[in-house]
Structure formats: structure tokens, C-alpha cells
């Protein structure tokens, strides 16, 4: 991006603006001085009643001001500035896309739906005041996600002040869900609590805590529990033990992140804000869409009627939520009617391509990618 040259162009405009305004000031001063000189002459008149002298002074002043030509001077510098201004505007139009709405479909894009999405976004980012202000101003009805996200932020807030109680309570209440997700969040929270007690409390407290809360995990996580129990030997001086790593503050950060992840999962929500995901995809996809809209407009093709984009908008991997199979022979996208099929050699084509290659269900045919022979019967449908 040529931001450097744009900045230079702007500096030139700003310089001209400064010149222009100092020129204006100068002209005003000049005119002011002329008037003041005439004023002094008027006051110094020997014969105040001499209308002739008075008129001479005023006519002289008038002539001098005409000579100065203040309006012309101001106009002149303004004109030069205007040239700079329009140059800069043109430069912006050249380097940037002056109309990014060219690929916009003028369809019913429901404001209320968008407002609900924005409100959810504010709440899930923890911006509750802002969310409330917005709901109020947009006169939107309550969003159901507000109170669960409030709970989540209360838990996280407590964790920031090293209070694990709300987090532990939540984890215990949602134990089944956590286990189903394969998450050991609950054990990790207890481990953190245990280490806190070990470092700040007594060995007895730590032992008591371990017996009460860690022992139920022993059957599945024996190795972990053994390590933790060994920590008891260094109670109060864990920092100089082989287990000093347990004290690292990154455990708190990581756990806060994992809790957020699990909390969203329990809510049936995504981890990332869906609005942020769509907008980011929009930023990555729009440049290609705009090029496409231009090409299609030139060919007089209908933008609105198109059911599928004719070209891929290559997004990053983070935006791949589904398996898309594209047959290497026909370039068709796999579907229920035309599913991907695995040939005995391991290569995969779509069903229609295989039917075309084989011509009949019993005949053998050659894989187009390796010389291996196959029959339709030997091909298997794949499920991604």
C-alpha cells in the first residue's frame, strides 16, 4: 500500500492550507494598517472642517485598498489550495476503492435482526452497560443471552481476584457437560485452589482440601494427583521446589480462557463472537466480490439472480466450518445426490464421475490418477 505517498500528498495539502490562512491574515493586517494610517491622517487634519482634505484622505485610502486587492489575494491562494485538495481526493480514489457497496444486494436486510446480533455481541464481549444503552436506544426487546454472559463475567472477575469459588461451583453444576466435552476443567480448578492453599495456607488445610476435592479424580487422573500430593513436601516454599511451575500465573490465564470456552459450549454458543467472524470473513472476501461485481456488470450479468458465486472467495482456515468435497474430474461440489466415492486405490471422485468413467456397473475402469483398475461395486461412499 502506497500510504507513504498518500501521506506526502496530505502534507502538501496541509502546507497549502497553512499558507492560505497566513496569507489571509496578512491581507487583513495590510488592509487594517492602511485604514489606521488614514485614520491618523484624519485625526491630524489642520482644518477639521475642510471637506476637501477629508475627501482626499478617503479617496487615497480607497485607491490604496484597490492597489492591495485583498479579495484577489485571498482568492489566489485559495485557488492554489483547491488544486491541492482535488488532487488529494483523486489520489484517495485511485489508491482505495471509492465505492465498496458495488457488490451489495439491495435486499431486505432486516434491521431488527442486525440489532439483536449487535446486542448479543456487546453482551458476550462483557460490555453490559453499552448493551443496555443500545437496547434502550434501539428499543429492542431483551436478549436472552444477557444473564448467562453476566454470570460468566462474574466468574471471570472473581478469578481475576484469585477467587475460584464461583468457577468451581459452575464446574460442579455442569460436570456432565464438561466430561462429555472431554474437559478436565474441574480438576484443573481444584489443582489451582490446592496450590493456592499450599502456598498461602497450612499443610493441614492443603491435605484436607486434597482429600475432599482431589481424591474423587484419582481413579482417572492418578499421575496428576500423585504429583500434587508430592507438592505437600514443599508447602510454603513451592517456588523453590521441582513443582515451581504450578505457581505460574499463566495457569490462571489459561484456565480463564478454558472456562470461557466451556461456558460458551454449555450455552450452545461459539467461542468467537459470530459477528466478528462474519465481518472478518467480509473483509477477506469483499475485494474479490467487488472485482467480480465489476466483471459481471461489464458483461451485463445479473448480480441479484445469482444463486452461487462463480468464483471462490479464499478465506483463511479459521473460516472452514464444513467439509467441502470438490470432484477433481468434474469440479462439482459433492452433495447428497452426488456424494464423494472412494476407489480401491484410495483416490476419491464424485459418484457421477465414476458412473461416467465406468459406463456400466460391471465393467472395470482405470483410475484417472493412477493406473489401478476398479469397478463401481468396489467403490465406497464417503462421509466427511
Amino acid at each position, binding site marked *: 500500500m502506497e500510504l507513504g505517498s498518500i501521506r506526502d500528498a496530505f502534507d502538501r495539502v496541509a502546507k497549502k492550507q497553512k499558507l492560505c490562512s497566513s496569507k489571509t491574515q496578512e491581507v487583513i493586517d495590510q488592509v487594517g494598517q492602511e485604514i489606521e494610517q488614514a485614520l491618523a491622517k484624519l485625526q491630524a487634519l489642520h482644518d477639521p472642517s475642510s471637506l476637501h482634505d477629508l475627501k482626499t484622505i478617503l479617496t487615497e485610502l480607497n485607491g490604496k485598498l484597490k492597489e492591495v486587492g485583498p479579495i484577489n489575494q485571498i482568492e489566489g491562494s485559495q485557488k492554489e489550495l483547491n488544486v491541492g485538495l482535488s488532487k488529494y481526493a483523486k489520489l*484517495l480514489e485511485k489508491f482505495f476503492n471509492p465505492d465498496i457497496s458495488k457488490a451489495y444486494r439491495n435486499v431486505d436486510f432486516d434491521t431488527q435482526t442486525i440489532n439483536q446480533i449487535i446486542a448479543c455481541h456487546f453482551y458476550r464481549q462483557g*460490555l453490559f452497560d453499552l448493551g443496555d444503552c443500545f437496547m434502550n436506544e434501539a428499543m429492542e426487546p431483551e436478549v436472552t443471552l444477557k444473564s448467562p454472559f453476566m454470570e460468566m463475567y462474574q466468574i471471570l472477575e472473581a478469578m481475576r481476584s484469585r477467587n475460584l469459588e464461583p468457577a468451581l461451583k459452575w464446574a460442579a453444576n455442569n460436570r456432565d457437560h464438561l466430561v462429555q466435552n472431554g474437559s478436565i476443567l474441574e480438576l484443573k480448578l481444584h489443582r489451582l485452589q490446592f496450590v493456592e492453599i499450599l502456598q498461602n495456607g497450612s499443610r493441614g488445610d492443603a491435605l484436607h482440601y486434597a482429600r475432599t476435592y482431589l481424591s474423587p479424580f484419582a481413579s482417572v487422573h492418578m499421575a496428576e494427583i500423585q504429583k500434587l500430593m508430592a507438592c505437600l513436601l514443599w508447602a510454603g516454599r513451592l517456588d523453590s521446589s521441582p513443582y515451581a511451575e504450578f505457581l505460574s500465573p499463566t495457569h490462571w490465564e489459561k484456565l480463564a480462557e478454558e472456562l470461557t470456552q466451556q461456558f460458551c459450549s454449555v450455552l450452545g454458543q461459539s467461542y468467537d463472537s459470530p459477528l466478528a467472524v462474519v*465481518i472478518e470473513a467480509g473483509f477477506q472476501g469483499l475485494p474479490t466480490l467487488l472485482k467480480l461485481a465489476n466483471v459481471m456488470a461489464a458483461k451485463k450479468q445479473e448480480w441479484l439472480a445469482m444463486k452461487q458465486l462463480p468464483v*471462490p472467495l479464499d478465506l483463511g482456515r479459521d473460516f472452514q466450518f464444513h467439509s467441502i468435497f470438490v470432484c477433481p474430474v468434474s469440479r462439482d461440489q459433492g452433495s447428497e445426490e452426488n456424494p464423494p466415492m472412494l476407489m480401491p486405490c484410495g483416490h476419491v471422485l464424485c459418484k457421477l464421475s465414476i458412473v461416467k468413467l465406468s459406463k456400466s456397473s460391471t465393467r472395470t475402469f482405470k483410475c484417472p490418477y493412477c493406473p489401478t483398475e476398479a469397478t463401481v461395486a468396489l467403490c465406497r461412499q*464417503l462421509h466427511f
Partner: protein
Amino acid sequence: MEPEPSPLSNGDSTAAGTTTAASIASAVAATAAPIQSARINHLAESLKLEHQFLRVPFEHFKKSMRSNHRIAEKEMSTVISSVSEAANRDNMSQEEAVNHLTSLVSRLQGLKRKLEEGSKSENLQAQRCRARLDHLDAAEAENLSEWNNTRLKRILVDYLLRLSYYDTAVKLAECSNIEDLVDIEVFHEAKKVIDALHNKEVAPALAWCAENKSRLKKSKSKFEFQLRLQEFVELVRADNNIRAITYARKYLAPWGATHMKELQRVMATLAFKSNTECATYKVLFELKQWDYLVEQFKQEFCRLYGMTLEPLLNIYLQAGLSALKTPFCYENDCSKEDPLSQEGFRKLANPLPFSKQHHSKLVCYITKELMDTENPPLVFPNGHVYSTKALEEMARKNDGKVTCPRTGQVCSYSELVKAFIS
């Protein structure tokens, strides 16, 4: 029989499926570099979308300059013509002349003060233009996620301002510290006009038209005419027919040359009354005409400042939804991480086209990771496919046995076959 290793191109990966450590390392290096440069390329492309971001403060800057210039010119002309007028008078006393010139001197001093004020606001606008350039310059691969976060906030503020949710807009800008990157001040100017139109007052809108006369004329805007028509209709509604006719003569007639049909139509309301049942005229008396004027004003306003007519948020939402939309999004097992698993986004995406892929892109059902050369797809005897990473891990934990999570089929890891997707 094991097939020959063939090129597995899944997405942007181009490495061949050999398995020595060295070749994997070089393959990773070879794909990492294009990914990095692709990201920078993406960034450069999406920065080009930021025209409005630079254009609006520039227009604001220009506007300040224009208004200062206008003041200077007007005052100066008054002073000059006042001097020449005095020079042409024959019966002025000394005292009168002194008073006259003194008043001119103080007038010039007043002008100087005004221009100094004006120059302050010019500098502020210029500084804002620079802040925007700096912000674009600061976008780099390393801080991209934070930068993108700010961008989303900017776009949200734009949306809030356009829909007149000013309090939320100001609040969001303040709490994110992005006041220089959003156009709250510019929209404040619009707010005055919009509020007045909602109160059925046209004066601020007319003043705005006068202020931007030459530019509105250039874009062949008929907004002022529409405002005048509305004022006329209001006079007819109030049964103030004499005044209505006087008004029409003064303010509507000048538009006759270019907008005769509309002019005739609205003049005909004189023959009817505000309670007319005739559809053509009834609509002119409807109160939603005022809402229409608000919409009209917003469009003129955006055009003048070089903004898109649609909120940026809507534009990016549409592009993003099209990019993400696949037939699979509407199935029940659509991943929660996919925004299109949500009703609201599905509704918005309804009238938009599906995305298109030229190459297979396969996502592991278990790990949600992309299956490619480094993590090739493995097939269960029943045809279900998962990534090598996921199944290796499963086999390691279960003595070499793997279970298909969707069908429950159990087999040993060695029974799985590799699929080659090109």
C-alpha cells in the same frame, strides 16, 4: 495395495505426501511462507476498502476551510465597499469619517479573531486526517487481531450513527478510545437536521442545503425542492391557501424548469384538501412523507461526505455471509462455531448467494482441523472419514482400537485406509 503418493492439494497446501522428517519440515516451511505472504496480501487488499475512513475527515477538513474562506471573503468585501462608499460621499464630517474608519478597524479585528478560531478547527481536522493514515499504517501481521478488533468497533460506530443511536455510538467510541477514528462530530451535524425533520421543521435542513448549495447542484440533488414541496403541503394542510400560493411562487416556481410534473402535482393539492381520498394526493398528505425526507437527507448527507449509502456493517455482513454460506450450514449438525448455525445470521443470509470452492477443503469431524498432507483423511470400513491426528490419538488411548463417533463402528487402526483427495 498402497497407492503411489500423489499430490494432495487441500486448500493452499502444495507439498507432496512423502513422510521423511526433512521433507515434512521443508513442506511446512514452504507452506508457512505463502500463508504469511497471503495474509499480508489479504491485508493490503482489505485496506483498499477503507476509502470512507480517509475521505470523511478530509471532507470535514475541506468544509472547515471553505467556511473560513467564505467568512474572510465576505467581511473583506464589506470593508472594501464601505471604504469606497465613504470616499464617494460628499457631506461627511470629520467625526463621522473617524467613527466610520474606527468601526472598520474593529470589524477587521473581529474577523481576525474569528479566523484564528477557524484555523484551530482546521488544524484539528487535519490532525484527524493524519490519525487515520497512521492507523492504517499501523496494521501489521503481528497486531492484526487487535487491529481487526478496532476495525469492528469502527464499523459498529458507523452503523450506530447512521441509525441515529447516538448515545451508544458515543459510548462505544469513548470506552474503546477510538474517537479520532470515527465520525461522531460529522454525524452531529446530521443529527440537528434529522431531529428537526422528525419535529416537522425544515429550517435546519434548508440551512444545510444553502450551506452546500454548489455541491448539491453538482450532484443534481432535488432535496431542497422536496423540502419546499413539503412546506407547501403543510400550508395547504393548515388551509393557509393564500400563503401557500405566495410560497409556491417564491420557492417552487424556480424548480419548474426541471421538475414541472412534480410541481404540477403538488400544486393540484390546492384543489383538494388534506382529507382527500384521491390516492395520488392522499399520499402527499401522509405523515410518513417526513420519514421519507429523513431518509432522503441521510442519503444526500452520505453522498456529500463520500460515504457509502449503506452502513459499512451491512456491506461487510453481506460479503461475509456470502463467503461463509454453504448448503451444509442449514443442516442440524452445523458446527456452533459457524455463525450460520444461528437463526439471525441464517435469516440475513437467505437472499444471498452460496459460496463456491474450486478445491476440496475437508474438516475433521472430531478435531475440526483441516485434513491435508500433514494430517491426511483416514476412512473407516463404513465410509466415515476422520483426520489421522484424531484417530492416531484414539488408537493410542484404546490399544489400537478406533470407534466411529457417528455410527459407533469399532475397528482396529490398521483397518483404516487413507483417502487421497486432489
